[in-house]
């Protein structure tokens, strides 16, 4: 291709990309960069901005509220991540065997994914209501006195995790389904000829062949669960007694309730560093597993 044609191709690409690129720069990159600058300063939106160097970071690392929020975020991840991945894998295996109605069930499981977090959180708040909620009613019917859920610090996080798993399961299921359909059928036929039990077929074929899918869904879910916020804000606002106070909720409070823009930005960057480190570690682990397989 001639350089002129090249140039016109790039020009066309640039023009076509410009609208989304402009949006990215204005609404994503610029705020991200300014939050980096803000994280080294003190600013309450009204007054003058003053430079404080690393003070915000030093304060954040020693702040019991940050450590508490981090602990609660990790608790959330520990409850949420294995549940959503395992249940979705189970569902995907079931749906994959369905010859008829697979599309219908897939759609049903996907409905919560496309429902707004506000609606989902409000509905679950009602379901989890200790006196009038359906869940405690059902538990009562089989003779179990249900807990206080969102009003009880020991149970509030479980309530949030339940809600989140219910909402996100469809997304992970659909990705697993796609992964399952990519596994070549002859592998199973050969295994069956060799007399492999379904259990052996799962462990020797399905599970290893799904490894890239598993890696993808755990990475995506891990990143999003570090940023858990909407459901917490609507269902508990971090309560009771701080039992569900998570990182992003703390960032939001510092920024828009305490007006500590610099401090909130610093916590955001600490969170970013954490997610980045965990994702890198996960990536390395995955590569190592790949190598030991091959």
């Amino acid at each position, binding site marked *: 291709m001639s350089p002129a044609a090249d140039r016109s191709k790039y020009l066309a690409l640039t023009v076509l990309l410009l609208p989304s690129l402009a949006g990215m720069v204005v609404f994503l990159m610029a705020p991200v960069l300014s939050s980096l600058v803000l994280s080294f300063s003190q600013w309450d939106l*009204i007054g003058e901005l003053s430079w404080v160097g690393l003070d915000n970071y030093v304060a954040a690392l020693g702040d019991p509220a940050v450590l508490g929020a981090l602990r609660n975020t990790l608790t959330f991840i520990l409850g949420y991540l294995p549940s959503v991945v395992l249940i979705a894998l189970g569902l995907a295996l079931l749906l994959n065997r369905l010859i008829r109605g697979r599309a219908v069930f897939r759609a049903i499981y996907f409905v919560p994914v496309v429902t707004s977090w506000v609606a989902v959180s409000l509905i679950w*708040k009602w379901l989890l209501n200790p006196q*009038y909620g359906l869940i405690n009613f059902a538990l009562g019917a089989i003779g179990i006195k249900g807990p206080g859920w969102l009003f009880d610090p020991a149970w509030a996080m479980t309530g949030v995790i339940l809600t989140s798993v219910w909402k996100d399961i469809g997304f992970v299921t659909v990705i697993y389904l796609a992964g399952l359909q990519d596994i070549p059928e002859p592998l199973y036929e050969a295994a069956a000829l060799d007399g492999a039990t379904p259990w052996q077929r799962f462990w020797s074929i399905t599970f290893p062949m799904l490894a890239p899918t598993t890696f993808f869904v755990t990475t995506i879910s891990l990143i999003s669960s570090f940023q858990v916020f909407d459901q917490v804000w609507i269902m508990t606002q971090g309560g*009771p*007694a*701080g039992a569900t106070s998570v990182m992003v909720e703390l960032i939001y*409070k510092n920024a828009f*309730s305490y007006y500590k823009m610099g401090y909130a930005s610093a916590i955001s960057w600490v969170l970013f560093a954490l997610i980045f480190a965990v994702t890198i570690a996960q990536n390395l682990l995955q590569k190592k597993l790949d190598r030991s397989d091959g």
Partner: protein
Amino acid sequence: MLRRTFTGLLLATALITPALAEDVTIKYMTFSAAPNYLKELDATIAAFEAEHPGIKVTYETAAWDAYFTKLQTVVAAKQAPDAFELNFENFVTYAEKGALADLTPLIAADTGFSTSVYNPTALAAFAQDGKQYGLVESFSNVVLFYNKDLFDAAGVAYPTADWTWKEELEAAQKLTDPAKGVWGDFAPIQFWEFYKTIAQNGGSILSPDKKTVTIDSPENVETLTWMIDKVNSYKVTPSDVEMAGQSSEDLFKAGKIAMLRTGIWLLGDFAANAKFKWDIALEPGKTNKAHHFFANGVAVSANSAHPAEAYQWIKFLTSSKAAVDLRIAAGWELPAVSDAAALQGYLDQPVPESREVVFQALDTAVVPPVIGNWNQLTDAVGKELEAAKLGQKTPEQALKDAKTAIEGLL
């Protein structure tokens, strides 16, 4: 040609003397008018514009939950409205940050106007270091609401001004009826209720100079214990789980709470929707009487291009007869004016009978111990109170931890 010259002339005049050539438009931002009192706000603006030709008022509203985030953002973007509403707590923060215009010289220059038209306590709340940074617009307080029918049924005498916590508890025990789901007494266990209740036992959160934290005093431990015991030991107050997300005012309206400490902003709602006889009384205290006092004020932005006109508007909004009458007729909070005749319309309304209690409660008003990091203080203390309420910490420990948290904020 002629027309062009004429236009040019007009344009030049407008550029040189903008104040003469066109109306001044004052931008106003409010939370208290939305969504229920927009009609009254429109009427107030119409009356103001009729009296002040050349000044126009436009407004923007935001609901209470979102108002301060919105205001903070427009102030940060240097797009602050000329005049805006502030509650007392946020007023302190804004005044400290230099976001408000000092009205003192404007008031001094305003011949024929005296600040004696305002309730002095309420007006003083909007001054700092001897400078008036806002005019008081309205106030509200919290009193003891009680369900007369439940008292009659249980054969208990109505609350009087002499009641202390002891009489309150005795009555509450007689009024509580678990079989019918009736609770004798209700007061929430949270920051706002706490700073008032400790004052009823002679306690405080900070020393008067706001330099020493006094929240962990023995009286305060005793008070918090009392608040929690009403739920856990005496069982005259429902717990959070028992309330299950229902509001105390809904339970009161349903005849499930006999005595409720809540705000006078509910008078209209209860008068219209409570299907039983009820009245209000002063709150019982332990060693002292103490009542909440909440005030809303209006301030002029430090960056307003038209501070004099903005001042005229907020003066009209807070003290003119037209505005005061509109407010009282609509029950849009209570104007903080000193003129008893103007407030008579409020007292004359038939339900509840003892409306004068609202004014009596002002004699023992307590204001919140506002500091710069106010929202953080309320969250930090609120969290400790919640931990004590849920039994995660003893009242002593919770207040000790609250003290440490506040000391970090001063």
